[in-house]
């Protein structure tokens, strides 16, 4: 283990000789063993250092303008010391001091790494790698079952993972994602969907009403008129209509209770040249309810529509089946049902190997009383999915509150959704 090492300069002189040695060697080569100062100055590195040491040791002396060789030494101790230090041999303390003074050597800094040589270590360090000393250490063995501290990944919410998976599949099936406002007009949430003004699901027990302001407006007056006429007498849809319509109720501001409001808005903005069109929405809806393990007042729906000429009920069943298969169902079954805005209306049951038959959602073909006032003549296939329910099945939870979980440890521990 070296205590001292050569500096840059020291290493240079080890090769070329110390300046005083260089000077003596030149003088020795001169025929008269002397040369003018000026010439000597040009032929030696660091002439003044060389001169200082040569004169001090009486290896040379000045004679007028010339420098003359004195006693050519058998050995220049400093030169020998440099060689020894380089080889890692012991050197006289006095010489060490001199060389240190002349900055030709420096103390070797013993690193933590050096202390580890030959020992058993726990941590492999950058120093060990840098110095190459890793070759001279042993690595302490770990018990494979060693207890370790807990780490928590930064993670998406398990419910988000389910949502993302479904979004991905719908986009893959060619559906364009839509969004709509959370505060909504009754008009979009119900009237444009041909739900009668006195439909039981429009009361204060089923819809959250906005306190202030109470009313909004639909700027498209002709759309407003068409919906009004359809409710009252069927307009040109071929329907009997409901006989009545409550315009004030239609203007009432509420919290969206079904994502079908977004479907209605999408249809109203859909241009003929953009057909066929597939749209989906996954978003919040609100309904007054008790708050317990099975019910919450805010949840998500997943809904899709397909608009195109020549679409039929069989195609609706085709989409339902396709979608059910993409979410991992083995089989599907359909059952007649009722929704105010669709006719046909069907409920979808899906079969999962581990869960059996599960009611997955509702669907149908939008009634002409819905599509024609919105300006759509082509059939519109529509389906909606109870996203929360599906997510709960996928996550193996039976309390709906976990979907909005405030339990950080559960979120941290819950495995990734496969």
């Amino acid at each position, binding site marked *: 283990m070296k205590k001292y090492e050569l500096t840059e300069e020291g290493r240079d002189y080890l090769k070329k000789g110390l300046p005083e040695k260089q000077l003596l060697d030149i003088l020795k080569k001169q025929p008269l063993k002397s040369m003018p100062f000026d010439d000597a100055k040009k032929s030696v590195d660091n002439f003044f250092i060389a001169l200082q040491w040569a004169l001090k040791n009486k290896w040379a002396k000045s004679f007028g303008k010339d420098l003359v060789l004195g006693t050519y030494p058998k050995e220049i101790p400093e030169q020998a010391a440099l060689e020894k230090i380089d080889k890692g041999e012991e050197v006289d303390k006095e010489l060490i001091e001199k060389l240190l003074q002349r900055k030709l050597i420096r103390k070797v800094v013993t690193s933590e790494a050096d202390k580890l040589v030959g020992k058993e270590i726990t941590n492999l360090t950058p120093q060990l790698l840098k110095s190459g000393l890793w070759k001279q250490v042993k690595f302490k063995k770990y018990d494979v079952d060693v207890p370790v501290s807990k780490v928590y990944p930064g993670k998406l919410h398990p419910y988000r993972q389910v949502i993302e998976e479904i979004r991905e599949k719908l986009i893959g099936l060619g559906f*364009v994602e839509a969004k709509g406002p959370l505060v909504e007009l009754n008009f979009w949430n119900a009237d444009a969907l041909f739900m009668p003004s006195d439909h039981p699901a429009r009361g204060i027990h089923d819809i959250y009403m906005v306190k202030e302001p109470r009313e909004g407006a639909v700027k498209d007056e002709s759309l407003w008129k068409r919906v009004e006429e359809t409710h009252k007498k069927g307009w040109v849809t071929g329907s009997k209509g409901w006989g009545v319509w409550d315009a004030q109720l239609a203007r009432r501001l509420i919290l969206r209770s079904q994502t079908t409001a977004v479907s209605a808005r999408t249809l109203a903005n859909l241009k003929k040249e953009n057909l066929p069109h597939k749209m989906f929405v996954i978003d919040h809806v609100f309904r007054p309810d008790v708050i317990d393990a099975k019910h919450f007042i805010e949840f998500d729906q997943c809904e899709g529509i397909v608009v195109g000429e020549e679409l039929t009920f069989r195609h609706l*069943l085709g989409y339902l089946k396709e979608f059910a298969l993409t979410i991992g169902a083995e089989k599907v079954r359909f059952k007649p049902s009722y929704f105010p805005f669709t006719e046909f209306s069907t409920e979808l049951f899906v079969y999962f190997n581990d869960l059996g038959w599960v009611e997955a959602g509702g669907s149908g073909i939008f009634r002409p009383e819905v599509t024609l006032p919105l300006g759509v003549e082509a059939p519109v296939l529509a389906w909606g999915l109870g996203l929360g329910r599906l997510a709960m099945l996928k996550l193996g939870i039976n309390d709906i509150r976990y979907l909005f979980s405030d339990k950080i440890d559960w979120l941290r521990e819950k495995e990734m959704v496969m």
Partner: protein
Amino acid sequence: MPTITYDKRDLLNLIGKDLSDEQLEEVIHLIKPNVEAMKEDEITLELTPDRPDLYGIEGLARAIKQYLGLIIGLKKHKAENPKVQIKAGTVDIRPYIAAAVVRNVTMTDAFIKSLMNIQEVLAETIGRKRKKVAIGIHDFDKIIQPISYTDANPDAKIVPLDTDEEMNLSEVFDKIPKGKEYGHILEGAKKYPVYTDAKGVFSFPPIINSDRTRVTEETKTLFVELTGLDKESVLQTLNILVTNFAERGCVIEAVKIFHGERPEITPDLNPTFLDITLEEINKWIGLDLKKVDAVAILQRMGYDVTESKGTLRVYIPSYRTDILHKIDLIEDVAIGYGFNNFTPELPNIATVGKSHPIEKTSAKYRHLLTGFGFQELIRPVLTNHRDLFEKMNVERENVIELENPVSEDYVCLRNWIVPSLMKVLSVNKHVDYPQNVFEVGDVVVPDDNEEIKAKTVRKVAFIMSHSKASYTDAKAVAETLMKQMSVDYKLEEASSTAFILGRQANILVENKVIGHFGELHPQVLENWGLEMPCAAFEISL
């Protein structure tokens, strides 16, 4: 959706064929209702609001018989010519009435049960809890004609059903349970709707009948009277009621109602019709049915069909109140065919799917924040002022409030997300720190320029909570987020009371504040019961 329990033995008697539980369940599912429970002598169904004709056990049995082919096509019901008259006055608070006399009644236990059930269910559903339509059923032989429908003064007398006390109409609201339950329907009225006979008031709709005209086991003839706010609904309800009774062999006799001089006869049990072509049917259902198949299916669904010049004329029974449009008939063809007999088929249409831009951006923020090791939270948009403002040590702001909240914890919509995250931290004090959490979600802010007077805004928020959480921690993450998302932003000093003064900044984009971050004020931490420093961040996208 109403859930109704039926007497299974009575149902099978009415069907006239012994079906196993499985067969019964299957045919009911094919027709539409959901079988909720099947017991030894009872069957419980969940029914859809479009088919009130199935709410009564007789109507359900009829539909099953038709579907099974035990009777073919439309079941004809006839109302005998009227012998009874009603003089109807102008009653503004309940203007529309309808009535019928039902003869040849045999009051079996099953019929009494059915009678009470159907009356109640129809008044609850089509009747909208008696407001739109109310039903009264009386022993006809106890009524002494002439019958009138009129409005009476509050001091008119009645002995309400199941009591023996004569009282003023105005006393009914407080003295008997039905009065308390339905009295609000007549709130504010100066005069009350009543049916009277020679002896006085015998019905006080929509509240209660008189005790003296009550139906008993000895009753031979029924008088059915309806009142309501919507004429169509009143007439439809009567049709459903009396055709149900007719299924038990009762004879329906019409009643002549005089509004002034104009007589009107109820019920009208004649079928209506809609014309439809085979092409229309096949176009919608996506099959290639032959005419003979389509006709057979329509008969199975209880319709009669005649044909002329390629058009099918479909006769619709008077109790099928759900048929508004021919699409409703076409759906019944699909139901009659059996939904599970269709081969599902994907149409050959190609479209390009894509995510909404706001979701695309949100996903990138979520990606970055989970990369920082933060846990995502999903929190309700509904909240309360205490959490949004008081606990956050800031002045109340204008937010969207609910008129009909169900819980004091959820009375308005959040306009920022940090309080939602604080609420989570406040119940996780026992859980390992650091707790770094985030949410990318919606808030709603009032906005008079919108049609809906509000705007949904997508926001990103995070909180870092640990013993050294500071302004600089939040700044490091905030600035990295903004840079990664290529947001050209500036910072300026901010002065929210939610944060420590001098340790907070506003984030500006094009000189508009889009968000803020900083060290939450100790008062805020104390308000939430937290003993750990928190640095928070929130921006609008």
